[in-house]
């Protein structure tokens, strides 16, 4: 077998082993590949950072699923830390049936971490006062539209079956007029519905945290201003983690930032494999 045939017919199992090695190595060997913050992530961070504390709420829609947790969960954790550290109240919702469990887990992780260092009740994050998770609702188009008139009519009870009227936070949140921005953390096309209905009809600002596969579709909305900021994939999550860390809202970087070294190594490997495959193809065609 000629050399160009060898490089164009590498066994897929060898590629899998190489992929695994390139992912594992950066966790044990100190590799630091610098990550730049993209403008769309910076824009989202700056918007959240500019909001006055204890004023309008940020609505976070948890629309990701367990299989996309490596991309979307770090976004949720970094965003929750940012909001809680700045005393910006949060209202969580989900229209993806897989969202509730992951939303509750993300809230619990951040609230437990922040409350473990709180010195007083004022420093603590309290459910019903600082945040509320309203849970899952079917029929999202009608729900997104109706929340423009009344959030309570769509979610009369929260995820834990408590009446929303019992929460001090929900006394001052009636509809989208009390929402500074709706940030959709999604693994499917849920943000489109927020853009079509909440943004276009009610003028709500929409930010998005997406899996990387979805990101190219949302650049046009970013360019027209229909989307006010975007985190795309693990890189977007790592960028937000970095911003939150650099501004002192977190004491350590998250899982996305540590995963990005592996990501960069894998990209290098894939670029090399694509080049090798093309060289092999080019030479085998010339010989024919």
């Amino acid at each position, binding site marked *: 077998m000629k050399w160009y045939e060898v490089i164009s017919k590498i066994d897929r*199992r060898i590629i*899998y082993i190489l*992929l*695994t090695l390139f*992912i*594992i190595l950066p*966790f*044990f060997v100190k590799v630091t590949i610098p990550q730049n913050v993209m403008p769309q992530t910076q824009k989202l961070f700056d918007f959240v950072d500019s909001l006055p504390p204890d004023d309008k709420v940020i609505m976070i829609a948890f629309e990701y699923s367990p*299989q*996309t*947790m*490596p*991309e979307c969960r770090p976004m949720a954790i970094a965003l929750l830390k940012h909001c809680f550290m700045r005393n910006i109240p949060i209202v969580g919702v989900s229209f993806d*049936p897989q969202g509730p469990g992951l939303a509750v887990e993300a809230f619990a992780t951040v609230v437990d971490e922040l409350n473990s260092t709180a010195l007083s009740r004022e420093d603590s994050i309290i459910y019903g006062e600082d945040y509320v998770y309203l*849970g*899952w*609702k*079917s029929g999202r*188009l*009608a729900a997104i*539209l109706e929340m423009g008139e009344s959030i309570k009519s769509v979610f009369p009870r929260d995820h834990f079956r408590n009446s929303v009227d019992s929460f001090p936070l929900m006394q001052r949140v009636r509809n989208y007029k009390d929402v500074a921005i709706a940030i959709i953390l999604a693994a499917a096309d849920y943000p*489109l519905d927020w*853009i*079509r*209905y909440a*943004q*276009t*009809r009610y003028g709500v600002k929409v930010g998005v945290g997406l*899996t*990387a*596969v979805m*990101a*190219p579709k949302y650049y*046009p909305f970013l*360019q*027209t201003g*229909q989307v006010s900021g975007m985190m*795309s*994939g*693990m*890189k977007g999550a790592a960028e937000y983690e970095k911003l939150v860390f650099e501004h002192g809202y977190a004491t350590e970087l998250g*899982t996305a930032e*540590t*995963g990005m070294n*592996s*990501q960069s190594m*894998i*990209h290098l490997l*894939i670029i090399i494999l694509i080049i090798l495959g093309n060289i092999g193809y080019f030479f085998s065609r010339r010989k024919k």
Partner: protein
Amino acid sequence: MSPDPWIWIGAILTLMIFSFLFKDNAFYKFGEHLFVGVANGYFIALYWHNSLKPNLYDQLVAGNFIYIIPLLLGLMYFARFIPKISWLVRIPIGFIIGWGAGISIPAYFQAEILRQVGGTIVTPESFINPLNGIWALIIFIGVVCTLIYFFFSKEHKGILGHTSRLGIIFIMIGFGASFGYTVMARVSLLIGRIQFLLGPWLGLIK
């Protein structure tokens, strides 16, 4: 290593699914079938407790008999299994299509056509920042050339041929960006699993 049995179950199921990379086998099949079963059970329970029970069952029990209408509409979907009355399925489908079209068409037109067309228009304000002006021009040229590529009523020759070829270049750049992002997404999922195996399960990384 983790003492938590749930972490062990997660790790073993992950390895069962990964075993497909070598070749199809009984462990992979077990993991796959278990996932389908668990997912179905989860969705049925969720829809019953969060949708059907509060929105239909509880309402009927409370005496709100107007909810019989959506119940009947829902039941009509099952009419397709009985050939004699299978035509009844057209009623709920017609209802859904009518409602869906009414709610979607204006929103889609406003958000994805009018606003997007507006975003491609180059105005003198686009050049307040020269770099933004250049990007606005590139977007304008890209949109026009790509649209010309999909204009099939005239043979792509002369000026039409040149612009449609430029359109192909823009389309290819779009495909390249999508492919790059797809690679990043898939690798991210693998990194997430490896982080889980090395961290919570084996305790080798933080």
